[in-house]
């Protein structure tokens, strides 16, 4: 036991003196919150702009529909009549190349058809693959359709028909999402950053204590000491876990501070993310550290050099993203049978926590228990690998 602690202490001290360790330790805490801040600010500014700004829309054939143009102006949509667009083909080309988000094309026969039984035609040119333009397109579409409905209603009334005859069904939308649950999608990305930061925190040590020690030729003399190899490797993994937990804690603190500065309210989000939440999130995520340490140590044990280990471990860093990607794509809800899957269970529990919903104690116990069990299994494997003669390389 004392040998294990001696090894652990030495690895912590030695690693602390290396600049590249400090870098990897600070990578997660800095990179995550910064990226997140940028992401949220972009979202905020886009949402704000699409609601209040005067939207300028290049318009062809505005002279055919002065009333429609006036209607749009009243809704802060400014039809631009001076532009380089000559026909629909021009409009399509300019939208495709991203010069304009949306172009309104009023049919030449609009004023002629408007008074008759024909439907007057209006075209909207836009690019559905451009998400950025989606809110502007729907604003213009909504306004144009609103004009059509208003005219239709007036015509029915003029002919003595009750307009409600044309609306046999009315759909009332009742959106039950709360601000906290709307923000959860965004904050769900956060769990990945947290797991990522946990892994990167121990990356250097996991490599250095196995492949690195072999490469520097300090492994062989170490193995001649009267200490069981299990104590050596478990001591090394313990040191790795310490760094991973430190990285996780730093990242959580950084996120908590960063989220407090963000204008979450402005986009209808409210985050309950404070230091208390961060502390619970730490407890939920901490069991992932031994699992990650054992996984990285096991993988690094197969490699000959620091560089080779680094290459393999880059892929290991991607492993926790797989369940998260599925969870986000399939919109998975927390379920008992999912709680035994490491990284997915942490994601679901932390997301629940952020949504400000109650955590199910059985789920928490299952997640922690299963993650620690997987960690123990991989740790046992790492010990087995360390006992091989081939470990000397």
């Amino acid at each position, binding site marked *: 036991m004392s040998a294990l602690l001696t090894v652990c202490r030495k690895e912590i001290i030695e690693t602390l003196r290396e600049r590249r360790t400090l870098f990897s330790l600070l990578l997660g805490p800095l990179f995550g919150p910064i990226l997140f801040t940028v992401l949220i600010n972009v979202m905020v500014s886009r949402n704000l702009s699409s609601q209040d700004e005067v939207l300028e829309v290049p318009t062809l054939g505005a002279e055919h529909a002065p009333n429609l143009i006036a209607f749009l102006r009243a809704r802060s949509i400014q039809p631009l009549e001076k532009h380089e667009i000559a026909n629909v083909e021009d409009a399509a080309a300019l939208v495709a190349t991203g010069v304009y988000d949306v172009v309104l094309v009023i049919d030449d026969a609009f004023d002629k058809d408007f008074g008759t039984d024909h439907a007057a035609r209006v075209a909207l040119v836009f690019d559905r693959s451009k998400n950025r333009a989606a809110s502007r397109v729907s604003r213009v579409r909504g306004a144009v359709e609103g004009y059509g409905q208003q005219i239709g209603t007036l015509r029915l009334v003029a002919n003595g028909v009750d307009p409600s005859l044309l609306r046999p069904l009315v759909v009332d939308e009742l959106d039950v999402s709360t601000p906290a649950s709307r923000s959860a999608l965004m904050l769900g990305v956060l769990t990945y950053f947290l797991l990522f930061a946990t892994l990167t925190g121990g990356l250097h040590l996991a490599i250095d204590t196995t492949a690195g020690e072999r490469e520097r030729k300090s492994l062989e*003399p170490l193995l001649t*000491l009267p200490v069981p190899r299990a104590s050596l490797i478990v001591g090394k993994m313990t040191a790795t876990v310490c760094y991973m937990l430190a990285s996780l804690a730093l990242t959580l603190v950084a996120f908590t501070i960063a989220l407090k500065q963000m204008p979450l309210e402005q986009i209808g989000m409210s985050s309950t993310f404070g230091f208390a939440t961060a502390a619970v999130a730490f407890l939920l995520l901490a069991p992932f550290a031994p699992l990650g340490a054992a996984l990285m140590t096991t993988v690094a044990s197969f490699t000959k050099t620091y560089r080779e280990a680094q290459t393999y471990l880059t892929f290991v860093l991607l492993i926790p993203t797989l369940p998260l990607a599925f969870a986000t794509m399939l919109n998975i809800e927390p379920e008992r049978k999912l709680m035994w899957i490491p990284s997915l269970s942490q994601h679901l529990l932390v997301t629940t926590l952020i949504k400000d919903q109650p955590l199910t104690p059985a789920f928490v116990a299952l997640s922690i228990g299963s993650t620690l069990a997987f960690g123990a299994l991989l740790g046992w494997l790492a010990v087995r690998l360390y006992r091989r003669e081939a470990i*000397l390389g």
Partner: protein
Amino acid sequence: MIEIDGISKSFGAVRALDGVGFEAKDGRITGLLGPNGAGKSTCLRILSTVLEADRGTARVGGIDLKSSPLAARRVLGVLPHSSGLYQQLTGRENIEYYGRLHGLGEEPLAARVDALIERLDLGAIANRKAKGFSQGERTKIALARALVHDPQHLLLDEPTSGLDVMATRHLRDWLRELRAQGRCVLLSSHVMQEVEALVDELVIIAAGRVTLTGSPSELRQRFPGHSLEEMFVEAVRGTEQTAA
């Protein structure tokens, strides 16, 4: 006292050692001599318990390596070929780390490390990080590290490789001093002159077998008119012929 008998070891299809047996007595420096690839390092690695023999027995100070490797390691000091230090630790910390893993208490450890630093003249580098050490400085620290628990037996794999003349002389003086203290020193080398100047007993090993043993003077008597180098060449050639 180191005794090995009928030791064989194979790596896949390659037979590195084939029934090697010899003794290294206390108060003597025994030289394991042979060309590159003869099996010297494999032999020392089996004795230092990082490798396990396929067949045969090996005892260090009467302790069987196979049944109680941990007990054997307590009486063994090992300086493997190209021993690496921990770059971010100072010379002193490198030595202390091994002392703690040997289970030394903090006070005896400090006294022991002070003594080693003084005897090996390490004062100038003891508190510097190992990062910038020369080969000679590294070997000195590695040697101090191997001796931190005051072992009765010492295994050194090509200890002088990479050392300059002065460093080599210091190392020889130090090994003679360990012999005078009654310790059992076993070192490997492929350099004839080095062995001749230092060892009391010679074990010549080639192609995984012991081909010749005896003290340098004994061998000179048995093969009058031959220099040690000629004997060495003869011994190695013999195995090459039987192998072919």
